[in-house]
Protein backbone atom coordinates (compact mmCIF):
# COMPACT_ATOMS: atom_id res chain seq x y z
CA UNK A 1 0.00 0.00 0.00
CA UNK A 2 2.71 2.47 0.98
CA UNK A 3 4.54 1.74 -2.22
CA UNK A 4 1.82 2.82 -4.60
CA UNK A 5 1.13 6.00 -2.63
CA UNK A 6 4.80 6.85 -2.74
CA UNK A 7 4.74 6.26 -6.49
CA UNK A 8 1.77 8.61 -6.86
CA UNK A 9 3.59 11.30 -4.92
CA UNK A 10 6.71 10.89 -7.01
CA UNK A 11 4.79 10.74 -10.27
CA UNK A 12 3.97 14.46 -10.04
CA UNK A 13 7.60 15.17 -10.85
CA UNK A 14 7.47 12.91 -13.95
CA UNK A 15 5.24 15.50 -15.64
CA UNK A 16 3.00 12.86 -17.30
CA UNK A 17 -0.61 13.45 -16.16
CA UNK A 18 -1.76 10.13 -17.69
CA UNK A 19 0.78 8.23 -15.59
CA UNK A 20 -0.38 9.91 -12.40
CA UNK A 21 -3.99 9.12 -13.27
CA UNK A 22 -3.09 5.49 -14.02
CA UNK A 23 -1.38 5.17 -10.63
CA UNK A 24 -4.33 6.78 -8.87
CA UNK A 25 -6.72 4.34 -10.55
CA UNK A 26 -4.45 1.45 -9.64
CA UNK A 27 -4.43 2.52 -6.01
CA UNK A 28 -8.21 2.90 -5.95
CA UNK A 29 -8.65 -0.50 -7.61
CA UNK A 30 -6.45 -2.11 -4.96
CA UNK A 31 -8.92 -0.90 -2.33
CA UNK A 32 -7.17 2.16 -0.96
CA UNK A 33 -9.81 4.79 -0.23
CA UNK A 34 -9.89 8.06 -2.14
CA UNK A 35 -9.04 10.17 0.86
CA UNK A 36 -5.85 8.24 1.55
CA UNK A 37 -4.86 8.49 -2.10
CA UNK A 38 -5.40 12.21 -1.91
CA UNK A 39 -3.67 12.85 1.41
CA UNK A 40 -0.84 10.33 1.31
CA UNK A 41 -0.27 10.38 -2.44
CA UNK A 42 -1.16 13.60 -4.21
CA UNK A 43 -0.95 16.08 -1.34
CA UNK A 44 2.32 14.60 -0.16
CA UNK A 45 3.62 14.83 -3.71
CA UNK A 46 2.68 18.48 -4.03
CA UNK A 47 4.31 19.15 -0.69
CA UNK A 48 7.59 17.80 -2.02
CA UNK A 49 7.19 19.90 -5.17
CA UNK A 50 6.69 22.99 -3.01
CA UNK A 51 9.82 22.24 -1.00
CA UNK A 52 11.93 21.68 -4.12
CA UNK A 53 10.68 25.00 -5.52
CA UNK A 54 11.48 26.78 -2.30
CA UNK A 55 15.06 25.54 -2.35
CA UNK A 56 15.54 26.37 -6.06
CA UNK A 57 15.95 22.77 -7.09
CA UNK A 58 13.07 23.17 -9.50
CA UNK A 59 11.61 26.24 -11.22
CA UNK A 60 8.26 27.50 -12.52
CA UNK A 61 7.99 25.18 -15.57
CA UNK A 62 8.45 22.10 -13.38
CA UNK A 63 5.95 23.28 -10.75
CA UNK A 64 3.44 24.17 -13.44
CA UNK A 65 3.68 20.71 -14.99
CA UNK A 66 3.49 18.97 -11.61
CA UNK A 67 0.40 21.08 -10.98
CA UNK A 68 -1.12 19.85 -14.21
CA UNK A 69 -0.58 16.23 -13.10
CA UNK A 70 -2.20 17.03 -9.77
CA UNK A 71 -5.18 18.80 -11.30
CA UNK A 72 -5.93 16.00 -13.73
CA UNK A 73 -5.73 13.44 -10.93
CA UNK A 74 -8.05 15.56 -8.78
CA UNK A 75 -10.72 15.24 -11.46
CA UNK A 76 -10.67 11.48 -10.84
CA UNK A 77 -10.43 11.67 -7.06
CA UNK A 78 -12.85 14.45 -6.14
CA UNK A 79 -16.14 12.70 -6.99
CA UNK A 80 -15.07 9.75 -4.82
CA UNK A 81 -14.37 11.75 -1.68
CA UNK A 82 -17.01 11.21 0.98
CA UNK A 83 -17.53 14.08 3.34
CA UNK A 84 -17.29 13.15 6.95
CA UNK A 85 -18.55 15.26 9.84
CA UNK A 86 -15.00 15.64 11.16
CA UNK A 87 -13.74 17.06 7.83
CA UNK A 88 -12.65 20.64 7.78
CA UNK A 89 -13.44 21.91 4.33
CA UNK A 90 -11.65 25.11 3.39
CA UNK A 91 -12.75 27.23 0.45
CA UNK A 92 -10.40 29.85 -0.91
CA UNK A 93 -11.18 32.56 -3.45
CA UNK A 94 -7.95 33.72 -5.04
CA UNK A 95 -7.11 36.34 -7.66
CA UNK A 96 -4.63 38.97 -8.81
CA UNK A 97 -5.92 42.48 -8.09
CA UNK A 98 -7.18 45.12 -10.48
CA UNK A 99 -4.60 46.59 -12.84
CA UNK A 100 -2.24 43.67 -12.41
CA UNK A 101 -1.80 40.80 -14.85
CA UNK A 102 1.03 39.01 -13.05
CA UNK A 103 -0.51 35.63 -12.32
CA UNK A 104 2.32 33.11 -12.26
CA UNK A 105 2.84 33.43 -8.50
CA UNK A 106 -0.89 33.50 -7.83
CA UNK A 107 -1.34 30.33 -9.89
CA UNK A 108 1.37 28.59 -7.89
CA UNK A 109 -0.29 29.57 -4.65
CA UNK A 110 -3.63 28.33 -5.99
CA UNK A 111 -2.18 25.03 -7.00
CA UNK A 112 -0.36 24.45 -3.73
CA UNK A 113 -3.62 25.17 -1.94
CA UNK A 114 -5.42 22.68 -4.13
CA UNK A 115 -2.60 20.31 -3.42
CA UNK A 116 -3.27 20.79 0.27
CA UNK A 117 -6.86 19.72 -0.25
CA UNK A 118 -8.55 23.12 -0.18
CA UNK A 119 -11.37 24.02 -2.53
CA UNK A 120 -9.85 26.79 -4.67
CA UNK A 121 -11.84 29.24 -6.76
CA UNK A 122 -9.41 31.06 -9.01
CA UNK A 123 -11.01 34.27 -10.26
CA UNK A 124 -8.09 35.17 -12.51
CA UNK A 125 -6.12 38.39 -12.84
CA UNK A 126 -7.02 42.08 -13.08
CA UNK A 127 -9.84 41.45 -10.60
CA UNK A 128 -11.88 44.34 -9.16
CA UNK A 129 -12.07 44.55 -5.37
CA UNK A 130 -15.84 44.01 -5.40
CA UNK A 131 -15.44 40.88 -7.53
CA UNK A 132 -13.43 39.22 -4.73
CA UNK A 133 -16.31 39.89 -2.35
CA UNK A 134 -18.97 38.67 -4.78
CA UNK A 135 -17.06 35.47 -5.47
CA UNK A 136 -16.50 34.86 -1.75
CA UNK A 137 -20.25 35.20 -1.15
CA UNK A 138 -21.20 33.01 -4.07
CA UNK A 139 -18.87 30.20 -3.00
CA UNK A 140 -19.29 30.70 0.73
CA UNK A 141 -15.55 31.05 1.06
CA UNK A 142 -13.45 31.00 4.21
CA UNK A 143 -10.53 32.84 2.71
CA UNK A 144 -10.03 35.63 0.20
CA UNK A 145 -6.46 35.59 -1.13
CA UNK A 146 -5.20 38.61 -3.07
CA UNK A 147 -2.03 38.72 -5.09
CA UNK A 148 -0.25 41.85 -6.40
CA UNK A 149 3.15 42.22 -8.04
CA UNK A 150 3.15 45.96 -8.61
CA UNK A 151 3.59 48.68 -6.02
CA UNK A 152 0.87 50.60 -7.85
CA UNK A 153 -1.70 47.81 -7.63
CA UNK A 154 -0.93 46.99 -4.01
CA UNK A 155 -3.33 49.84 -3.31
CA UNK A 156 -6.27 47.66 -4.35
CA UNK A 157 -5.64 45.21 -1.51
CA UNK A 158 -6.78 47.46 1.35
CA UNK A 159 -9.94 48.09 -0.68
CA UNK A 160 -10.65 44.36 -0.74
CA UNK A 161 -10.01 44.13 3.00
CA UNK A 162 -12.26 47.11 3.72
CA UNK A 163 -15.09 45.74 1.58
CA UNK A 164 -14.75 42.36 3.28
CA UNK A 165 -14.98 43.95 6.74
CA UNK A 166 -18.22 45.74 5.81
CA UNK A 167 -19.79 42.74 4.16
CA UNK A 168 -22.09 40.36 6.00
CA UNK A 169 -20.71 36.92 5.16
CA UNK A 170 -22.10 33.70 6.56
CA UNK A 171 -18.63 32.85 7.81
CA UNK A 172 -15.81 34.78 9.37
CA UNK A 173 -13.93 35.39 6.13
CA UNK A 174 -10.18 35.98 6.40
CA UNK A 175 -8.32 38.10 3.89
CA UNK A 176 -4.74 37.27 2.83
CA UNK A 177 -2.30 39.43 0.93
CA UNK A 178 0.75 38.20 -0.97
CA UNK A 179 3.09 38.88 -3.88
CA UNK A 180 6.65 40.09 -4.24
CA UNK A 181 6.28 43.75 -3.14
CA UNK A 182 4.09 42.91 -0.13
CA UNK A 183 5.56 42.48 3.31
CA UNK A 184 3.94 41.33 6.51
CA UNK A 185 3.89 44.64 8.37
CA UNK A 186 2.26 46.46 5.47
CA UNK A 187 -0.26 43.66 4.93
CA UNK A 188 -1.36 43.59 8.55
CA UNK A 189 -1.51 47.37 8.79
CA UNK A 190 -3.65 47.54 5.69
CA UNK A 191 -6.39 45.19 6.66
CA UNK A 192 -5.05 41.72 5.94
CA UNK A 193 -5.61 38.89 8.40
CA UNK A 194 -2.46 37.21 7.17
CA UNK A 195 0.52 37.36 4.86
CA UNK A 196 2.86 34.68 3.52
CA UNK A 197 6.00 35.02 1.51
CA UNK A 198 5.53 32.04 -0.78
CA UNK A 199 3.17 29.28 -1.85
CA UNK A 200 4.06 26.78 0.87
CA UNK A 201 3.81 29.53 3.44
CA UNK A 202 0.39 30.45 2.08
CA UNK A 203 -0.87 26.90 2.70
CA UNK A 204 0.43 26.88 6.26
CA UNK A 205 -1.09 30.31 6.86
CA UNK A 206 -4.54 29.17 5.77
CA UNK A 207 -4.29 26.11 8.00
CA UNK A 208 -3.33 28.31 10.96
CA UNK A 209 -6.08 30.85 10.35
CA UNK A 210 -8.78 28.23 9.89
CA UNK A 211 -7.77 26.27 12.99
CA UNK A 212 -7.87 29.49 15.02
CA UNK A 213 -11.44 30.26 13.99
Amino acid at each position, binding site marked *: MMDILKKIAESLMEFEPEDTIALVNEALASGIDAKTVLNEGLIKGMDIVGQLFKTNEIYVPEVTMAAECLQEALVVIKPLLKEEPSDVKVTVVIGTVE*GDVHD*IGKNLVAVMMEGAGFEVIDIGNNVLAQTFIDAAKEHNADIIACSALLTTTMAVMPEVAALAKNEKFEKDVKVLFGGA*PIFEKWALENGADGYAEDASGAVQLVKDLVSRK
Partner: protein
Amino acid sequence: MTAKLPTMTYQERYNALLNKQPTDRIPFFHRGYGFCAKNTGFSIADIYEDPEKSYLAQSRTAEQFHSDGTPFYTFVSYGSWEFGGEIHWPVDRYASGPSVSKRPISKPEELDDLILPDPKTAGCVPKMMEFAKLQEKNNVQIAFICGSPFTHAANLCGVETFMKWMIKKPDAVHKAMRLMTDHIISVAQYFVDTFGEGKVLARSAAPSESNKLISPKHFETFALPYLKELHAKVLEIGVDRIYCHVCGEHNDNLPLWAEVPFGDPGMLSFGHEVSIEDAAKTFPNHIIAGNLDPQIIAKGTPEEVFEGSRKVIEDGMKFAPGRFLFMSGCEIPSNTPGYNIYMMQKAVEEFGWY
Protein backbone atom coordinates in the same frame (compact mmCIF):
# COMPACT_ATOMS: atom_id res chain seq x y z
CA MET B 1 27.17 69.97 -0.39
CA THR B 2 29.75 69.56 -3.08
CA ALA B 3 30.88 72.58 -5.02
CA LYS B 4 31.57 70.49 -8.10
CA LEU B 5 29.85 71.40 -11.33
CA PRO B 6 29.60 69.26 -14.43
CA THR B 7 32.08 69.93 -17.20
CA MET B 8 30.28 67.79 -19.77
CA THR B 9 26.85 67.84 -21.34
CA TYR B 10 24.88 64.59 -21.14
CA GLN B 11 25.64 64.04 -24.83
CA GLU B 12 29.39 64.44 -24.31
CA ARG B 13 29.20 62.18 -21.29
CA TYR B 14 27.30 59.48 -23.16
CA ASN B 15 29.65 59.62 -26.13
CA ALA B 16 32.70 59.49 -23.88
CA LEU B 17 31.28 56.46 -22.10
CA LEU B 18 30.76 54.62 -25.39
CA ASN B 19 34.22 55.61 -26.60
CA LYS B 20 35.82 54.45 -23.35
CA GLN B 21 36.98 58.01 -22.65
CA PRO B 22 36.97 59.64 -19.20
CA THR B 23 33.80 61.36 -18.01
CA ASP B 24 33.47 64.14 -15.42
CA ARG B 25 31.07 62.10 -13.31
CA ILE B 26 29.32 58.77 -13.61
CA PRO B 27 26.35 58.91 -15.94
CA PHE B 28 22.97 58.49 -14.30
CA PHE B 29 19.59 57.34 -15.51
CA HIS B 30 16.44 57.33 -13.36
CA ARG B 31 14.64 54.69 -15.45
CA GLY B 32 10.92 55.16 -15.05
CA TYR B 33 8.48 55.01 -17.91
CA GLY B 34 5.01 55.45 -16.42
CA PHE B 35 6.75 57.69 -13.91
CA CYS B 36 7.72 60.16 -16.69
CA ALA B 37 4.10 60.32 -17.80
CA LYS B 38 2.75 61.04 -14.33
CA ASN B 39 5.59 63.43 -13.56
CA THR B 40 4.73 65.57 -16.58
CA GLY B 41 0.96 65.39 -16.37
CA PHE B 42 0.40 62.90 -19.17
CA SER B 43 -1.43 59.61 -18.85
CA ILE B 44 0.35 56.26 -18.68
CA ALA B 45 -1.27 55.26 -21.96
CA ASP B 46 0.21 58.36 -23.65
CA ILE B 47 3.72 57.22 -23.02
CA TYR B 48 3.11 54.02 -25.01
CA GLU B 49 0.57 55.25 -27.49
CA ASP B 50 1.65 58.74 -28.42
CA PRO B 51 5.32 59.08 -29.47
CA GLU B 52 5.28 62.90 -29.35
CA LYS B 53 3.95 63.08 -25.80
CA SER B 54 6.12 60.17 -24.74
CA TYR B 55 9.24 61.88 -26.06
CA LEU B 56 8.36 65.11 -24.32
CA ALA B 57 7.52 63.43 -21.01
CA GLN B 58 10.81 61.53 -20.99
CA SER B 59 13.07 64.37 -22.09
CA ARG B 60 11.56 66.86 -19.65
CA THR B 61 11.85 64.38 -16.77
CA ALA B 62 15.47 63.68 -17.65
CA GLU B 63 16.13 67.41 -17.69
CA GLN B 64 14.46 67.84 -14.32
CA PHE B 65 16.60 65.21 -12.59
CA HIS B 66 19.86 65.82 -14.48
CA SER B 67 19.45 62.31 -15.85
CA ASP B 68 21.70 61.27 -18.74
CA GLY B 69 19.22 58.79 -20.20
CA THR B 70 17.59 59.93 -23.42
CA PRO B 71 14.01 59.07 -24.44
CA PHE B 72 13.32 55.65 -25.89
CA TYR B 73 10.36 53.50 -26.87
CA THR B 74 9.65 50.30 -24.98
CA PHE B 75 6.93 47.69 -24.83
CA VAL B 76 7.13 44.77 -22.37
CA SER B 77 4.30 42.84 -23.94
CA TYR B 78 6.12 42.94 -27.29
CA GLY B 79 5.60 39.84 -29.44
CA SER B 80 1.87 39.43 -29.17
CA TRP B 81 0.37 42.34 -31.11
CA GLU B 82 3.18 42.07 -33.67
CA PHE B 83 2.02 38.55 -34.58
CA GLY B 84 -1.68 39.28 -34.82
CA GLY B 85 -2.73 39.40 -31.16
CA GLU B 86 -4.46 42.35 -29.55
CA ILE B 87 -3.28 44.86 -27.02
CA HIS B 88 -5.12 46.76 -24.31
CA TRP B 89 -3.73 50.24 -23.63
CA PRO B 90 -3.15 51.12 -19.96
CA VAL B 91 -6.13 53.41 -19.59
CA ASP B 92 -7.75 51.88 -16.52
CA ARG B 93 -7.20 52.91 -12.94
CA TYR B 94 -3.88 51.42 -11.72
CA ALA B 95 -2.93 50.20 -15.19
CA SER B 96 0.82 50.48 -15.62
CA GLY B 97 1.64 49.16 -19.05
CA PRO B 98 -0.02 47.72 -22.14
CA SER B 99 -1.41 44.25 -21.58
CA VAL B 100 -2.28 41.55 -24.06
CA SER B 101 -6.03 41.19 -24.55
CA LYS B 102 -5.78 38.45 -27.18
CA ARG B 103 -2.84 36.15 -27.78
CA PRO B 104 -1.98 35.16 -31.33
CA ILE B 105 -1.75 31.48 -30.37
CA SER B 106 -2.65 29.12 -27.56
CA LYS B 107 -1.69 25.71 -28.98
CA PRO B 108 1.62 24.48 -30.38
CA GLU B 109 -0.01 23.49 -33.71
CA GLU B 110 -1.01 27.09 -34.30
CA LEU B 111 2.65 28.02 -34.62
CA ASP B 112 2.62 26.50 -38.09
CA ASP B 113 0.07 29.07 -39.27
CA LEU B 114 1.99 32.05 -37.91
CA ILE B 115 3.75 34.00 -40.59
CA LEU B 116 6.52 36.52 -40.15
CA PRO B 117 4.88 39.94 -40.11
CA ASP B 118 6.04 42.82 -42.28
CA PRO B 119 8.30 44.72 -39.88
CA LYS B 120 7.06 48.07 -41.22
CA THR B 121 3.49 47.48 -40.08
CA ALA B 122 3.79 44.90 -37.27
CA GLY B 123 2.17 45.84 -33.95
CA CYS B 124 3.99 48.65 -32.17
CA VAL B 125 6.78 48.96 -34.77
CA PRO B 126 5.20 51.95 -36.59
CA LYS B 127 5.03 53.82 -33.26
CA MET B 128 8.58 52.79 -32.47
CA MET B 129 9.68 54.10 -35.89
CA GLU B 130 7.85 57.36 -35.33
CA PHE B 131 9.63 57.61 -32.00
CA ALA B 132 13.00 56.84 -33.62
CA LYS B 133 12.44 59.72 -36.06
CA LEU B 134 12.00 62.00 -33.03
CA GLN B 135 15.24 60.63 -31.60
CA GLU B 136 16.96 61.36 -34.90
CA LYS B 137 15.50 64.86 -35.10
CA ASN B 138 16.61 65.67 -31.56
CA ASN B 139 20.02 64.20 -32.14
CA VAL B 140 19.82 61.59 -29.38
CA GLN B 141 20.44 57.84 -29.51
CA ILE B 142 18.14 56.11 -32.03
CA ALA B 143 16.95 52.76 -30.74
CA PHE B 144 14.63 49.83 -31.41
CA ILE B 145 13.33 46.89 -29.38
CA CYS B 146 15.55 43.86 -29.92
CA GLY B 147 14.27 41.20 -27.58
CA SER B 148 14.94 39.30 -25.66
CA PRO B 149 13.69 36.65 -28.09
CA PHE B 150 12.68 34.40 -25.19
CA THR B 151 10.62 37.05 -23.39
CA HIS B 152 8.89 38.07 -26.61
CA ALA B 153 8.34 34.50 -27.85
CA ALA B 154 6.71 33.68 -24.51
CA ASN B 155 4.30 36.56 -25.15
CA LEU B 156 2.93 34.67 -28.18
CA CYS B 157 1.06 32.22 -25.98
CA GLY B 158 1.64 33.60 -22.47
CA VAL B 159 4.56 32.90 -20.17
CA GLU B 160 2.93 30.06 -18.27
CA THR B 161 1.90 28.10 -21.34
CA PHE B 162 5.36 28.66 -22.76
CA MET B 163 6.84 27.20 -19.57
CA LYS B 164 4.76 24.05 -19.93
CA TRP B 165 5.87 23.66 -23.53
CA MET B 166 9.50 23.84 -22.39
CA ILE B 167 8.91 20.53 -20.68
CA LYS B 168 6.29 18.87 -22.85
CA LYS B 169 6.71 20.48 -26.29
CA PRO B 170 10.33 21.61 -26.62
CA ASP B 171 10.03 21.63 -30.41
CA ALA B 172 7.23 24.19 -30.20
CA VAL B 173 9.41 26.40 -28.01
CA HIS B 174 12.22 26.21 -30.54
CA LYS B 175 9.78 27.00 -33.34
CA ALA B 176 8.48 30.06 -31.48
CA MET B 177 12.05 31.16 -30.71
CA ARG B 178 12.99 30.78 -34.37
CA LEU B 179 10.03 32.92 -35.49
CA MET B 180 10.64 35.64 -32.92
CA THR B 181 14.38 35.77 -33.64
CA ASP B 182 13.73 36.10 -37.39
CA HIS B 183 11.12 38.79 -36.73
CA ILE B 184 13.49 40.84 -34.58
CA ILE B 185 16.22 40.54 -37.21
CA SER B 186 13.79 41.90 -39.81
CA VAL B 187 12.98 44.86 -37.54
CA ALA B 188 16.70 45.49 -37.01
CA GLN B 189 17.21 45.50 -40.78
CA TYR B 190 14.34 47.98 -41.21
CA PHE B 191 15.91 50.36 -38.68
CA VAL B 192 19.41 50.05 -40.15
CA ASP B 193 17.98 50.64 -43.65
CA THR B 194 16.16 53.73 -42.40
CA PHE B 195 18.89 55.38 -40.32
CA GLY B 196 22.11 53.88 -41.62
CA GLU B 197 24.81 51.58 -40.33
CA GLY B 198 26.33 52.34 -36.94
CA LYS B 199 23.47 54.65 -36.02
CA VAL B 200 21.04 52.53 -34.06
CA LEU B 201 21.16 50.97 -30.64
CA ALA B 202 19.42 47.64 -30.07
CA ARG B 203 17.57 47.67 -26.73
CA SER B 204 16.53 44.49 -25.05
CA ALA B 205 15.23 43.26 -21.71
CA ALA B 206 15.20 39.72 -20.38
CA PRO B 207 12.73 39.30 -17.51
CA SER B 208 11.06 36.03 -18.41
CA GLU B 209 14.28 33.99 -18.55
CA SER B 210 15.35 35.01 -15.05
CA ASN B 211 16.06 32.30 -12.50
CA LYS B 212 12.97 33.42 -10.65
CA LEU B 213 11.15 31.60 -13.44
CA ILE B 214 13.45 29.14 -15.23
CA SER B 215 16.55 27.08 -14.49
CA PRO B 216 19.97 27.94 -15.93
CA LYS B 217 19.71 24.64 -17.82
CA HIS B 218 16.53 25.78 -19.57
CA PHE B 219 18.13 29.18 -20.18
CA GLU B 220 20.99 27.42 -21.90
CA THR B 221 18.74 25.24 -24.02
CA PHE B 222 16.00 27.64 -25.05
CA ALA B 223 17.19 31.21 -24.60
CA LEU B 224 20.96 31.32 -25.06
CA PRO B 225 21.35 29.96 -28.63
CA TYR B 226 18.89 32.52 -30.02
CA LEU B 227 20.38 35.38 -28.02
CA LYS B 228 23.82 34.58 -29.40
CA GLU B 229 22.53 34.27 -32.93
CA LEU B 230 20.38 37.41 -32.78
CA HIS B 231 23.07 39.61 -31.28
CA ALA B 232 25.75 38.43 -33.71
CA LYS B 233 23.39 38.94 -36.62
CA VAL B 234 22.18 42.45 -35.75
CA LEU B 235 25.76 43.60 -35.13
CA GLU B 236 26.71 42.15 -38.50
CA ILE B 237 24.00 44.06 -40.37
CA GLY B 238 25.10 47.36 -38.87
CA VAL B 239 23.44 47.87 -35.51
CA ASP B 240 25.89 49.94 -33.47
CA ARG B 241 25.74 48.00 -30.21
CA ILE B 242 23.33 46.24 -27.91
CA TYR B 243 22.00 47.34 -24.58
CA CYS B 244 20.35 44.59 -22.57
CA HIS B 245 18.55 44.82 -19.24
CA VAL B 246 19.29 41.54 -17.50
CA CYS B 247 16.13 41.76 -15.44
CA GLY B 248 15.83 40.24 -11.98
CA GLU B 249 17.50 37.16 -10.52
CA HIS B 250 20.03 36.05 -13.18
CA ASN B 251 22.96 34.99 -11.01
CA ASP B 252 23.01 31.38 -12.18
CA ASN B 253 22.70 32.48 -15.82
CA LEU B 254 25.62 34.93 -15.65
CA PRO B 255 28.33 32.62 -17.03
CA LEU B 256 26.02 31.87 -19.97
CA TRP B 257 25.33 35.55 -20.63
CA ALA B 258 29.09 36.00 -20.88
CA GLU B 259 28.98 34.00 -24.15
CA VAL B 260 26.66 36.53 -25.81
CA PRO B 261 28.08 39.31 -28.03
CA PHE B 262 26.91 42.89 -27.32
CA GLY B 263 29.24 45.01 -29.47
CA ASP B 264 32.25 46.97 -28.23
CA PRO B 265 31.47 48.07 -25.68
CA GLY B 266 28.01 46.68 -25.18
CA MET B 267 25.82 47.84 -22.32
CA LEU B 268 24.21 45.66 -19.67
CA SER B 269 22.07 46.74 -16.78
CA PHE B 270 21.25 44.60 -13.78
CA GLY B 271 18.66 44.37 -11.09
CA HIS B 272 19.61 44.58 -7.42
CA GLU B 273 19.56 40.78 -7.37
CA VAL B 274 22.92 40.70 -9.20
CA SER B 275 25.79 42.50 -7.48
CA ILE B 276 27.69 45.16 -9.42
CA GLU B 277 30.87 43.32 -8.47
CA ASP B 278 29.71 40.04 -10.07
CA ALA B 279 28.38 41.87 -13.12
CA ALA B 280 31.59 43.84 -13.61
CA LYS B 281 33.73 40.71 -13.26
CA THR B 282 31.58 38.67 -15.63
CA PHE B 283 31.67 41.42 -18.27
CA PRO B 284 35.10 43.04 -17.98
CA ASN B 285 34.76 45.04 -21.21
CA HIS B 286 31.16 46.20 -21.29
CA ILE B 287 29.39 49.15 -19.71
CA ILE B 288 27.70 48.05 -16.49
CA ALA B 289 24.55 49.78 -15.30
CA GLY B 290 22.42 49.37 -12.23
CA ASN B 291 21.14 48.58 -9.74
CA LEU B 292 19.40 50.33 -6.86
CA ASP B 293 16.38 48.31 -5.73
CA PRO B 294 13.33 50.00 -7.34
CA GLN B 295 11.34 49.07 -4.26
CA ILE B 296 13.60 51.30 -2.15
CA ILE B 297 13.17 54.15 -4.63
CA ALA B 298 9.40 53.73 -4.66
CA LYS B 299 8.76 53.07 -0.97
CA GLY B 300 11.90 54.02 0.91
CA THR B 301 12.52 57.21 2.82
CA PRO B 302 14.60 59.88 1.07
CA GLU B 303 17.50 58.96 3.40
CA GLU B 304 17.24 55.30 2.42
CA VAL B 305 17.31 56.22 -1.26
CA PHE B 306 20.32 58.48 -0.75
CA GLU B 307 22.22 55.87 1.27
CA GLY B 308 21.30 53.07 -1.15
CA SER B 309 22.47 55.22 -4.05
CA ARG B 310 25.76 55.96 -2.37
CA LYS B 311 26.48 52.28 -1.86
CA VAL B 312 25.68 51.40 -5.49
CA ILE B 313 27.71 54.34 -6.83
CA GLU B 314 30.71 53.34 -4.71
CA ASP B 315 30.50 49.75 -5.93
CA GLY B 316 30.18 50.88 -9.53
CA MET B 317 33.17 53.22 -9.33
CA LYS B 318 35.21 50.55 -7.59
CA PHE B 319 34.39 47.54 -9.74
CA ALA B 320 33.61 49.16 -13.11
CA PRO B 321 35.52 52.45 -13.07
CA GLY B 322 34.95 54.51 -16.20
CA ARG B 323 32.30 52.12 -17.47
CA PHE B 324 29.59 52.43 -14.89
CA LEU B 325 26.17 54.00 -15.22
CA PHE B 326 24.05 54.45 -12.11
CA MET B 327 20.38 53.57 -12.48
CA SER B 328 17.47 51.94 -10.84
CA GLY B 329 17.62 48.12 -10.85
CA CYS B 330 14.49 48.05 -12.96
CA GLU B 331 11.68 50.28 -14.01
CA ILE B 332 10.47 52.36 -11.08
CA PRO B 333 6.72 52.34 -10.46
CA SER B 334 4.75 55.31 -11.77
CA ASN B 335 3.78 56.42 -8.27
CA THR B 336 7.37 56.81 -7.09
CA PRO B 337 7.82 60.13 -5.25
CA GLY B 338 9.80 62.57 -7.39
CA TYR B 339 11.76 63.60 -4.34
CA ASN B 340 13.27 60.11 -4.16
CA ILE B 341 14.55 60.46 -7.73
CA TYR B 342 16.05 63.74 -6.68
CA MET B 343 17.83 61.85 -3.89
CA MET B 344 19.42 59.58 -6.55
CA GLN B 345 20.52 62.66 -8.47
CA LYS B 346 21.88 64.22 -5.30
CA ALA B 347 23.92 61.10 -4.52
CA VAL B 348 25.39 61.19 -8.04
CA GLU B 349 26.32 64.83 -7.64
CA GLU B 350 27.84 64.14 -4.25
CA PHE B 351 29.69 60.86 -4.77
CA GLY B 352 29.83 60.29 -8.52
CA TRP B 353 32.76 62.48 -9.61
CA TYR B 354 35.86 60.92 -11.11
